């Protein structure tokens, strides 16, 4: 089958403003949108620029807007989106070239929530014990691959990029609800600030955008509840 694909183009070295280029490529229904971008780069226009690595949805490199919604290009098949496809960079981060955006502000937000294990007690000789139920409590948020699909689908983030964003909250949640960790109070204090969880207006865009099916809105709600109740149950 033939697929017509409109791709956002912007090269700051030569373009005053962005434009779309249209390509018509041969494709199978089970081809990934990433496969089409590769085909364009290989055979139509070598200058088309995008990030990718694992090509099966675990490395988080290729989040982009595909027909208006945030997806990983390697996890969307032609049969899922049809033969007219529009591909744009994710919104809210500065476009560096074509589909590549500046990820630094995203990672800065991530780093701001202390996204690492905190426990100052000397560890036991073997593993710290943790019940399967306690481990299950934060399982969902351990799946995050930091692709930014959620944060860049969030209207609150679009309106103010100082908002820490859903991805950072997800990664805070992963530690806040880990009963081995002792940094919850610090993280909740950070997230209780003006640019923390209260910027979330429960639009659910993040949950719909997540390629890992993390229940992000729920995770944010749990963090909000922990702040208001002062409890972690």
């Amino acid at each position, binding site marked *: 089958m033939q697929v017509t694909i409109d791709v956002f183009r912007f*090269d*700051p*070295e*030569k373009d005053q403003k962005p434009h779309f280029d249209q390509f018509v490529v041969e494709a199978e229904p*089970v081809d990934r949108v990433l496969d089409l971008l590769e085909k364009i*780069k*290989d*055979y139509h*226009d*070598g*200058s088309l*620029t*995008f*990030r*990718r*690595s*694992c*090509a*099966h*949805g*675990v*490395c*988080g*490199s290729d989040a982009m807007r595909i027909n208006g919604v945030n997806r990983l290009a390697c*996890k969307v*098949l032609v049969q899922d989106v049809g033969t007219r496809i529009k591909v744009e960079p994710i919104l809210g981060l500065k476009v*560096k*070239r*074509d589909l*590549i955006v500046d*990820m630094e502000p995203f*990672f800065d937000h991530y*780093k701001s929530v202390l*996204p*690492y*294990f905190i*426990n100052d007690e000397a*560890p036991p*000789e*073997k*593993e*710290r*014990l*943790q*019940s*399967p139920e306690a*481990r299950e409590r*934060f*399982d969902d948020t*351990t*799946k*995050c*691959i*930091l692709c930014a699909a959620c944060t860049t689908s969030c209207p609150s983030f679009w309106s103010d990029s100082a908002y820490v964003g859903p991805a950072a909250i997800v990664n805070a949640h*992963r*530690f806040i609800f*880990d009963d*081995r*960790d002792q940094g919850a109070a610090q993280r909740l204090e950070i997230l209780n600030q003006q640019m923390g969880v209260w910027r979330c207006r429960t639009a659910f865009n993040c949950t719909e955008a997540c390629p890992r*099916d993390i229940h992000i809105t729920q995770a944010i709600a749990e963090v909000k509840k922990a702040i208001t109740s002062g409890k972690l149950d």
Partner: protein
Amino acid sequence: MANVHQYEVVVVGAGGAGLMAGLYASKTAKTAVISKLYPTRSHTGAAQGGIGAALGNLEDDSPEWHTYDTVKGSDYLGDQDAIEFMCAAAPDVVYELEHMGLPFNRTPDGKIAQRRFGGHTNNETGKPVTRACYAADRTGHMILQTLYQQCIKNNVTFYDEFHVLDFITVNGAAAGVVALELATGELHIFHAKAVIFATGGHGRVWEITSNAYAYTGDGVAITLRRGIPAEDMEFFQFHPTGIYRMGILITEGVRGEGGVLLNDKGERFMDRYAPTVKDLASRDVVSRAMYLEMKAGRGIGGKRYLHLDITPETVNKYAALDGRVRPDGSPYTVTGEEILKKLPDIIDFCKTYLGVDPVSQPMPVQPTAHYAMGGIPTNVRTEIVIDENNTVMPGAYAAGEVACVSVHGANRLGTNSLLDIVVFGKEAGINAAEFARGASFQPLPDDAADFTRQQLDALRNGSGKERAADIAREMKEVMFDHVGVFRIEEGMQQALEKVRELKQRFKEVRVEDQGSRFNTELLNTWELSNLLDLAEVTAASALARKESRGAHARDDFQERDDKNWMKHTLAWLKDGDVELRYKPVTLTKYEPKKRVY
């Protein structure tokens, strides 16, 4: 003029090995971790099933058994001192990961959960043992995330999206690396006392592969160009269960949880090839059995794939036939819900890419290029050694898949790659920092970036008569057909000639994109030059080895030949040719035996 930075230790690559090295080196030395990807994009994150360590959380186990299994799995090509070191270090390094917060699954009594994996056995009974410590089917993801988190906590310095293109050596010692900054296209020189290569593998040489686009063998190619040999490159692992036609990995953990391989007749064929451990034989053994089944016309519908079945009905049937029991002695059974809980990602992959739900339908699978046992030769301290006398290059280190220590020999056991990266990544970080403490910087040559510029200029100024994508496709096809699961003299010869022809044609390639910012076409094309070099070295090393051992299986030399071939290959690229020499395998107490599963 390139930008110059100075660090005592530079780590190239930010997967599990690079992050562990960076974490440890930066404790005592000024360290930078340089990666062409953001660290969390690294291929460690794609590892699924588990990390091997004889914790004995569910049943009796010991590091000695793990050592023997690894030696046997390597088909007696692994260096036994290195294997002993790794398997003995395994329990402590897994506890260390847990102390860093890694969310392993748990046993009912709160310990780290463990599952069965291919080739890991109780040495007394020969039966599979639960040794793979796991976090669902995203253990690699958890290791990558946890190590990156620790690096943030400890303020490790990163240069993200800096692509290392050359290794600077002066007076026979490491002096730094040259890197291209993706965002600007500018070259940077990182002047260093010690350099650690942790750049991963090169599975993109083959057509059907589980490997990421980024797996282009940069570290081995760079060091080959600087006169350092590549070790045991003929040993490349084909994982038995890749998604048909796409190559995406389906973890061996599926078989660890009781899944079985079935042919077109619905027959569980592995009991004919490995009567004791059946579907949990070593990967080379299973991939060959699958190949033979398909060759005999028993692929599904006569095609080149088989079924991997994890449906509860099938699992419970064969678990009962095998007499498999739980640790408490009750019969082993699974439910669909348990499978979904333990293997969520592979179920998601199958639904996304195949429209198949593994809880109720079998998965179509075929062997897929997966892992480089060979690489940059190192000793057990991760120091790069440059000849058959194991002469150390001062300040040069390698760890993880890019390195050949050699703990995997001719065939790697599942779960030992994640173990390798944390054990030897840590070792590299500690040893490189210690070296830096006692060493001075080598003087930088005036022309440190010249060789890099020459390579890039050649790609920009080619005639354009050839297209890189065509060359890549032809290389992948010929390597998959002739330097794959089964090999024969004529095929390998044909592959070698083809790759050499492709290398000539590559000189006519021209990169269209003449821009400087994020010029991924330029870098992808440079990466293809690496793959071509590694394909040539792989084919030449394979052609010369006239025996079958581990992943190197020849139709024309079907037996292992310890008398003539129990030795490591060292391959140099010299003046457009491959020079081969050999060095002995390090033995401790394990005498070679016939390998039966």
